[in-house]
């Protein structure tokens, strides 16, 4: 009997997961469908850009600087063994633009802005603000969800670009200013090796995908949260965990598609 119960529990879990993915996909579709209003009244998106993008600037800049500095230190130690210290700029830039920039910025975005979105919408639900909006004949997906969705999609690549830029500056501080790598080779080799389409554009595509996925997960979890303190806290946790796993899995898939054999 224990075996049957275990199989049944696993089956229920799988069915629940598939059902939830379906509901989230429908939610995403409805968000796109009802986006017209907020794109016409773009000030709604700009307001959300402030809370998702601008308010995430500090964490992105500080984290980017330190990640770049660590890359500079570690990269120098590794490249020194092969006498290629002058390639430090290339290593830091490629590492950030292709991988660390989009991935780290998305992880930080999920923790800072994603969790805030989930908590905000979950609490709006718990305090009947969403019901009030429905009773006022205003579609909450069009008025609450869509502006936040587009703010997330727009701000994520900008934050990732900023993360990479600040990270490169951090690598420069450690590599050139502190250790003494030649400044000319640091910048010129970087300029020669980093390809706009192959590296930068692919990095931007990654960050747009991550931004879309993280924002949809955050909004869906908030909208779907049980209207209790426990429900909102659980939804916030799920946002961070699910988003982080989704980012890392998608990063592998996108890297395999974009850079295989490059």
């Amino acid at each position: 009997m224990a075996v049957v119960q275990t199989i049944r529990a696993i089956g229920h879990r799988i069915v629940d997961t598939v059902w939830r993915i379906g509901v989230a996909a429908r939610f995403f579709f409805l968000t796109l469908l009802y986006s017209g209003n907020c794109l016409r009244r773009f000030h709604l998106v700009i307001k959300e850009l402030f809370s998702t993008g601008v308010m995430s600037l500090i964490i992105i800049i500080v984290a980017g600087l330190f990640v770049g500095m660590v890359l500079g230190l570690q990269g120098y130690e590794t490249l020194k063994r092969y006498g290629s210290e002058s390639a430090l700029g290339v290593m830091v830039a490629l590492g950030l633009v292709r991988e660390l920039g989009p991935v780290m910025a998305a992880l930080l975005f999920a923790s800072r802005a994603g969790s805030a979105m989930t908590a905000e919408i979950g609490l709006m639900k718990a305090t009947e603000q969403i019901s009030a909006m429905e009773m006022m004949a205003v579609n909450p997906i069009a008025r609450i969800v869509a502006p936040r969705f587009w703010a997330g999609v727009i701000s994520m690549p900008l934050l990732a670009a900023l993360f990479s830029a600040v990270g490169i500056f951090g690598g420069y501080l450690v590599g050139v200013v502190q250790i003494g790598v030649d400044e000319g080779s640091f910048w010129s080799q970087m300029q020669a090796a980093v390809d706009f389409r192959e590296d930068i554009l692919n990095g931007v595509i990654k960050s747009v995908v991550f931004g879309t996925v993280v924002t949809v997960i955050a909004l869906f979890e908030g909208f779907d949260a049980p209207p209790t303190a426990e429900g909102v806290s659980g939804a916030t946790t799920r946002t961070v965990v699910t988003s982080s796993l989704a980012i890392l899995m998608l990063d592998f898939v996108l890297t395999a598609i974009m850079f295989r054999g490059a």
Partner: protein
Amino acid sequence: MPAPSLVEIRDLNFTYDKRPVLQGINMTFPKGKLIAIMGLSGCGKTTLLRHIGGALKPTRGYVKFDGQVMHELDARGLYLMRRKMGMLFQFGALFTDMSVYDNVAFQMREHTDLSEEMIHNLVVMKLNAVGLRGAQHMMPSELSGGMARRVALARTMALDPMLVMYDEPFAGLDPISMTVIGDLIRSLNDALGATSIIVTHDIQESLKIVDYVYFMANGVIVSEGTPDELRACDTDFVRQFVHGEMDGPVPFHYPGVDYRQALNLRA
């Protein structure tokens, strides 16, 4: 000649998770009247209100508002009907990321093409009606419970709805705020020529202002009448409710095993 009805409820039944919540409800809400639906917590009052707003579909029967059966409307039709309604939620449900001014202006901006200048004048008038003209720049977190309820009332009245629904408007208020909210509900209803439905269990405050009362218990109507008729009513349930008696048809003790048995005493 009696006033024509704005809302008609006929044989309304609603079952949730195999549990009957509403059973054979029949109610009529004439235009211009202020009508209370009273009963204990969990008796189905809010569920009834949600049916009137079209948020729930009945298992059987119907709610007709302004000539339309609510559960037969599609999403677009439902939203069009809701533009004629206003609802005051139990704790106001003000949008916490907007100021008092923006809360009241919300529906005007969403549903009309009025200029900001016109919206400003209307918002000031609505806030003046609830005595909070001076609080227009405050955020909901800076308001007391009574003030938040008054702002929510101004927001509910923003587009002069035909029907206003109040879900427990007196809950958690001090006596002064209660009287203020009660007086505002009555005066705004009369000034706008609206029809109002108050769901409450605050009997003393609501009997002062309403025209008619429905009493509900366990999903059915147990009594109805004008406030004077209900004060004089000798039905056990109504008497217990009106006078706040501790025991009666609504028992003090939650059903359980025999007391002696619970204490492990022998008979």
